[in-house]
Structure formats: C-alpha cells, structure tokens
C-alpha cells in the first residue's frame, strides 16, 4: 500500500455552472486526523467544493484526491471510508432509529453497533422510536450517527449545527472533538465563527469562489500579529485629548464617551493608561484588552476584494 500523505488534496479546482464560475481555482490539503474548516458567506462556493469532494458533483478543472481516490469516479471503496452529514437529508421516516442504523450499517464492511452510536450522539432511549417522531435537533443527531455508522476515516460535516440550541451545539462540538481524538479527519463547513474557533485545527476563508485566507484560528488573516485593541468608557469630564501620550498608538472615539486605542505595544499602552487613571483616581469602566476576534478578521476578509486579501 502506498503511504498516504493527505486525507484531502485539491489543486487548482474549478467549477463552472454555465457562465457562472462558483469555484475559481482553489488549492489546499488536509492532513489525516486534522479538523479542517471551510468558512465563508452564502454563495462563496463552500457547498459546491464540499459536494465535489463528496462525489456528488463533477469538477470543471483541477485535481482532487480524497483518501487517495478521485471522488468523481464514485468508487465504492471510497464511499466505504467516508461519512457524510448533508445540510438537509431525511432518513427512512417509517423505520425506527435502531432499524435505520442497522440498515445503513449493512452497507459498510466496518461498522459500529447502533447502541454505541446512539450513546455517542446522545440519542439513547430513542432507539425504538420511528424516525418521523424525532425533533429537528434529534434528526440532526441521527444524521451524525448515520455518517458514523461505517466507522469512517473521513467525515464531511456541512453546517452540522445549524438550527441547534446553544446546549445542543456544545454537545455536538464535544462529540466532534471526541471523533478527532479517535484520529478521524473532519472536513467542516460553517458560518459560525465560534464553531470554527472551537473545533478547527485550520480554517480556510472562502469568498466568491476563492480562498482568501488559510491558517489556524489563532493566526488567520494576521490575527496573531494584528495590533491589540484597548477600550474603556471615558471617565466623566474627560475627553480623548486628556489621555496620556500613547506613543504611536491610534486613539479614537467610536461611540460617544467610549475610547478605543489600537496599539502594537499593548503592555506599554495599557500601563500608561492605567497609571494615568490611578493618578487621577478615575475608574475606567469596561476596560478591555483584546486581539481582533476571528469574527473581526472574517468580516474584514469577506468585505474586501479577494485580490487585496491578507494571506
């Protein structure tokens, strides 16, 4: 057997629908055991890309390898090793949860017992209920169980927690993290920043068919080297002009009475500000020091023209 370098390998992938080019030449690789997240606004080409990887769509150009196979060939050997959670897909409504898991299990050479799957997704106690009686969130959990029934090496999750309440989302995240601990490769799409932040080893931001940034959630879009933001409420009777000299930091008042300092030397700036406040006996309400959030970076990246983007 040839040693496998990448779980997913994409090189110059393009997909056109008529005149419209949904995917405009993207390249990236996903390592085995990695959680890779494709993040982007609606219409960015995320689902098209994912469905090409899943084997549902044919590409217009470029090379694609999934677990060493070309997904376009629809080989059974590949489908046996891949689990897919689609955005929206029903299961057999008249069968019970346990029957559906057993039925799908028969398709795979390697399979997990239904009881174990139900425990993993938190559907214990619903084994004998018909699928049509499950709530929306429970159906999503069944989707995940069905994607895992063949004990896949690679799992595709297309917006897996859309429509979940916060506690169900936390539960789904911990399930996905458990899967990573088992060495599964996960390819995830989402438009929730916190989801990408919580789960992904690496994030690719896709805008208008192109990857505009790629990196870990901590460093993506230059987040790790971006200036720090310090903000607080200006004490009564003081204005921006009263603040101490902050030596090159950018000072502004984004809302009346609220100060925002953007500094590349955060410790020095914070020290100067707090010293100034103590001296005058001011309380700096809402004092906060923060890096730009993933969401800030994402909004900046997706608002720009792709050509200008930070790589």
């Amino acid at each position, binding site marked *: 057997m040839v040693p496998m370098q990448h779980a997913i390998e994409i090189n110059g992938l393009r997909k056109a629908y008529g005149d419209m080019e949904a995917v405009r030449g993207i390249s990236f690789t996903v390592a085995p055991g990695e959680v890779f997240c494709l993040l982007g606004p609606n219409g960015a080409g995320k689902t098209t890309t994912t469905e090409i990887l899943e084997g549902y*769509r044919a590409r217009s150009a470029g090379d694609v390898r999934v677990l060493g196979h070309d997904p376009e060939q629809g080989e059974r050997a590949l489908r046996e090793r891949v689990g897919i959670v689609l955005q929206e897909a029903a299961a057999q409504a008249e069968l019970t949860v346990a029957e559906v898991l057993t039925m799908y299990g028969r398709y795979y*050479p390697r399979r997990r*017992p*239904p009881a174990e799957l139900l425990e993993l997704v938190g559907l214990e106690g619903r084994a004998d209920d018909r699928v049509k009686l499950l709530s929306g969130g429970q159906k999503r959990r069944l989707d995940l169980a069905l994607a895992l029934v*063949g004990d896949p090496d690679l799992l595709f999750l297309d917006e897996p927690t859309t429509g979940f309440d916060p506690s169900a989302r936390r539960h789904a995240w911990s399930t996905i993290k458990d899967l990573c601990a088992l060495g599964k490769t996960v390819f995830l799409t989402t438009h929730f920043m916190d989801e990408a932040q919580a789960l992904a080893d690496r994030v690719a931001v896709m805008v208008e068919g192109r990857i505009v940034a790629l990196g870990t959630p901590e460093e993506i879009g230059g987040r790790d080297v971006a200036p720090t933001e310090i903000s607080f409420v200006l004490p009564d009777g003081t204005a921006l002009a009263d603040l101490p000299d902050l030596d090159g930091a950018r000072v502004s008042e984004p809302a009346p009475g609220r100060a925002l300092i953007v500094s590349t030397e955060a410790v020095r700036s914070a020290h100067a500000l707090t010293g100034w406040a103590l001296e005058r006996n001011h309380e700096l309400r809402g004092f906060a020091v923060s890096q730009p959030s993933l969401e800030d970076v994402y909004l900046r990246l997706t608002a720009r023209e792709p050509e200008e983007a930070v790589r």
Partner: protein
Amino acid sequence: MSAMSQTAERPQAAARGGSGGDVALTAWQVAYEQRAFWRNRTRAFFSFGMPIMLLLLFGSLNSGGRIAELGNIPYVTFFLPGILAYGIVITQFINMAGGLAIQRDSGLLKRMRGTPLPGWAYVAGRVGSTTAVSVVMGVVMLILGRVFYDVHLRAEAIPAVVVAVLLGSATFAALGMAAVSIIPNAEAAPVVANVLILPLSFISGIWYPMTGAPQWLHDLANVFPVARLANCLHVAFDPLNHGSAWSGSDLLVLAIWLVVGVRLAMRFWQKETAR
C-alpha cells in the same frame, strides 16, 4: 424481527464488495422497504387496499350482471383481471413516482448515494418490495374472485398470469421512476401520476369493455402499456378462450416499455440523486 438486531451485532458480516453480499443486501432492502410500506397505513390502503375494495364494490354492484358484447360472460369475470392490472399500475407507478419524488425532495436519495450501497441495489429493493405487494394483491383478488364471484382461472393460464404480473410490475415501476424527472416536487406527484394514469385506464378496457369504442381510440390505447397489461390478463382469464393464455404482442409492447422505462430511469438516477 429479532433476527435483524442479532445480525447487527456481528461486526463483519457479508457486506463486503462481492456480488453474493450485494444480493443479500438487496434482499435486506426488500425487507426494510416492506416494513416501511405496511407501516404507512395511508399509502398501504391507497395502493393495496383500494384496488381490492374496488373489486368488492364493483363485483357486488354487478353481481348478477353479464356482458353481452363479450359472449355473455359474468361482469366480475371481466372486471377482475382489469382491476388487477389497474392495481399493479397504481402500486408500481404511483408508488414509485410519488415515493421517489418525496425521497428526492427530502434528500434521502442523496444520502443513499453517499453510502456504499450500489444504486441498482437500492432500486431493486424498492421494485422487489412493490412487486411483492402486487403479487400478494393478485393472490388476494384470485381468492376473493373464487370465493365470492365464482371466477375461475384455468391451470394452464396461471404461468401467463404470473408472467404478466411480473413483467407489468417491472415495467410500471421503471416508468414510475422515469416519471420522477417530470414531477417538479413531491406535492405534485399524485396529481401528475393520476393525470397520466386515470385517462389511460378509461380507454384501456379496465372499467368496461371497449367494444363500442372507435378504432382510433383502440389504436391510441394500444400504444400505451396500461391497455397491454390489461389485455394480457383479460386473455388469460377469458372463460371462452380455450386456446393459448398468452398474448405475445401485448407482452412484447410491455417489454419495449420496460426497456424505455429503464433507460429513462437510469438517466433520472444520475441527475436527480445529486440534487
């Protein structure tokens, strides 16, 4: 059925690749489809119960009636093969077209395509299941006809009836699958299916004999498989027919429709399962 849950615990059963495993998989698909079919009471009534109910209803309404144009045979002797043909068309065509349209729209077909189950095995599972329903319906009708209406099927005609039921089932299942392409959404499925089937049933000699109809209407009806299936069964059941129970030309036209249906259905499968 406890057998299912038991085999589920055996981690590496037959499923891997080989054709023997796939045949077993198909058999399991038939079993699951059967289970789902009978659990959906509305659908089971519509496609299994209603043709039988129509047999009892029309049979009782015309219990003493005879049909002069057909050599004075009892009405029920004429009606039973026709309603059996109609039942097969309903079970196969409407069930397949409506059921697959729902499964397409809900994403179930897309989910199935993402699994290692071969597409043909999924389709074979559905066709096998609906054909089983048609066969059971035929047996029930024969028993009811024999017990209540004195309808007899001569032993030599039984193979012809079996072949007609199986070929008709396959043909209308394939055509139902092909029809999914022209059904825009699941809600429209029963309407589209009935618009195609109901008028054809009226010109195909199912409800009453076509003896008074003009030739062009006969010719038109004979292009389509509904009249052909009905005719196969009429010939086999005809008490005045002492010759061959087989109707070769009708079987041939049914077979041609089967090939057309399968070709169209295969095109459907590629396109619609990725939707």
